[in-house]
């Protein structure tokens, strides 16, 4: 019998649950390949694990747990600092190999020193930064696998052809003890991309356009599968940007096919970090069935902005030129990768920003790469600084989610901010009366130069 076709998500979930076939609506117990948690949800997850499995319980598999402090790190808030210590104690007790601690001393305490200011590096040699950007860099994302994380943007790893989604502390505590989770197989939607992005238009514009098209809840409970020649033309960073924001349309996960770019990227990193190297990609079946199937022509897209107060509130940058701004922000898992900063630097190079502009690299590797990349004898880091961007070496989530009041770049009073991040609900970046406009690094850069929302093609030939 010819097995009936499955979507990429169905394939991964079928394999993870030991079945030959699954269909949308099936409730299946999946075996978890990797569980990721961080400083905001880790302490609660650990609390659930201990409460339910006993204080001497051991995690189901030491090598499948990844702990990444990244959210509230560079703040003098004592509770936040304490939460990183809770993670460290747990890692020591459980002997977990994959913990990207802020400090090097495995029995020390983390304390941010506010007197040194926000810009200068305050971390040890193991610290990495934002979890979703760390996972692929450190070789924890592999095609065909199942990843759960206590963070809604865990869906970013769908770029690597895996089923990846966010869960709460209780589910994560359950996984820590059992290595399994009961989940419902989602229906799949297909977004078939054709053509190439025109100059000045980025992957961020693709996802903002699509969310505007289907609505902020248009993918609720569903998988967003990306296919087509347009996908293969994209870099892994581009795919990550798109997969990251599946949740902004309510999606359970986003997933990409595995191609040579995926394989090269993953193999290089698992080798570099000595993580598990075996994996089995999910291949595309013919005649898959989707609840939604649409072709998008990338060449027709324009610089796009999601307006306050939700990510589905779409306009083109051109339509919004009248919106004056108080601040520009580049950073986060979605918009703080090296390629994002390079795009930003292309626009502001040799010019000066007109409004307060904050830059927070997603990871410590991004910091290093920006310092190592030279354009005409100057590092990109210097180029950004001379354009007036306030750049911090302290890679983290920072003001992407507001955080404690001393967080770098946080909107501490009502203001209008254009941001390369992924979420703009009221209060997301701090003050609940402020307005956040989501855009690509190009558009954020162009707007930083003029002080109002600006179509970046004015600056890009």
């Amino acid at each position, binding site marked *: 019998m010819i097995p009936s076709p499955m979507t990429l998500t169905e394939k991964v979930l079928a394999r993870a649950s030991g079945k030959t076939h699954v269909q949308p609506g099936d409730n299946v117990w999946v075996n978890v390949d990797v569980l990721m948690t961080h400083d*905001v*949800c880790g*302490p*609660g997850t650990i*609390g*659930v694990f201990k*409460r*339910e499995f*006993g204080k001497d319980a051991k995690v189901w598999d030491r090598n499948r747990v990844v702990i990444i402090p990244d*959210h*509230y790190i560079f703040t003098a*808030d004592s*509770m*936040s600092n*304490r*939460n990183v210590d*809770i993670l460290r104690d747990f890692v020591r007790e459980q002997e977990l190999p994959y913990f990207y601690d802020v400090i090097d001393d495995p029995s020390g305490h983390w304390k941010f020193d506010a007197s040194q200011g926000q810009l200068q590096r305050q971390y040890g040699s193991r610290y990495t930064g934002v979890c979703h950007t760390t996972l692929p860099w450190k070789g924890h994302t592999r095609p065909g696998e199942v990843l759960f*994380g*206590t*963070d*809604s943007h*865990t869906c970013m790893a769908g770029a690597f052809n895996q089923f990846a989604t*966010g*869960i*709460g*502390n*209780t*589910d994560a*505590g*359950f996984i820590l*003890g*059992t290595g399994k989770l009961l989940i419902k197989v989602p229906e799949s939607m297909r977004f078939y991309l054709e053509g190439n992005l025109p100059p000045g238009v980025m992957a961020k514009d693709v996802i903002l356009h699509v969310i505007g098209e289907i609505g*902020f*809840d248009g993918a*609720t*409970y569903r998988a967003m599968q990306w296919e087509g020649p347009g996908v293969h033309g994209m870099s892994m960073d581009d795919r990550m940007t798109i997969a990251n924001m599946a*949740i902004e349309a*309510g999606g*359970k996960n986003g997933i990409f096919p595995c191609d040579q770019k995926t394989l090269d990227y993953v193999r290089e990193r698992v080798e570099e970090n000595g993580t598990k190297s075996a994996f089995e990609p999910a291949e595309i079946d013919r005649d898959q069935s989707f609840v939604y199937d649409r072709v998008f022509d990338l060449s027709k897209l324009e610089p796009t902005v999601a307006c306050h*107060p*939700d990510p589905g509130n779409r306009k083109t940058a051109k339509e919004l030129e009248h919106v004056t701004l108080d601040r520009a922000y580049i950073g986060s898992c979605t918009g703080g990768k090296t390629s994002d900063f390079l795009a930003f630097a292309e626009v502001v190079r040799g010019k000066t920003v007109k409004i307060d502009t904050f830059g927070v690299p997603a990871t410590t590797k991004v910091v290093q790469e920006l310092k190592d990349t030279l354009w005409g004898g100057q590092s990109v880091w210097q180029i950004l600084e001379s354009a007036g961007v306030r750049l911090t070496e302290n890679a983290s989530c920072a003001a992407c*989610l*507001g*955080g*404690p*009041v001393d967080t770098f770049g946080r909107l501490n009073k009502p203001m209008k901010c254009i941001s390369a991040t992924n*979420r703009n*609900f*009221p*209060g*997301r970046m701090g003050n*609940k*009366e402020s307005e956040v406009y989501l855009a690509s690094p190009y558009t954020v850069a162009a707007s930083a130069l003029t002080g109002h929302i600006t179509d970046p093609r004015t600056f890009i030939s």
Partner: protein
Amino acid sequence: MAHTVTSPVYVVQDNIDTDQIIPAQYLTLVPTIPDEYDKLGSYALIGLPDALYPTRFVEEGQFKSPYKIVIGGRNFGCGSSREHAPIALGAAGVEAVVADSFARIFFRNCVATGECYPYDTPVRLCDVLHTGDIATLDFDHDTLTANGVTYSLKPLGEVRPVIEAGGIFNFARQSGMIPAQG
């Protein structure tokens, strides 16, 4: 657990995301530490813009809300995966959220923690009810009665016993999926 609950309702509109339910600056509180659990309750829905929601959900200095039923619009609980959101509502004393639709992770976290019942309503109640209206939610008949009108809600189905048991762990133990706690 009582099969009906009667309480004034608190009414919100579409897209109430987790930052409005429990703003990010309070996420340093760890829900499994009892004192911090109670504090989360005191901050429930504090992220709602004051201009749109002049009535506070939890009075300043209080840990509990007088509103045991929250009425919402579309996409309630969208945004982050923070379990602090259903927990803050549960800690404030909320028994159920009745909304047009829920974001996936929030819905799942309600069930996993057993903190509150997420009810889908086919009638857009956030347009007909007002904060302070007294309503009775009947869990056996899946109805909400307010101002003399009874509205049918979508039955909770397979998630009801999980919430009734107090979340997935208790449920998994009751049904033998994981061993009883020693």
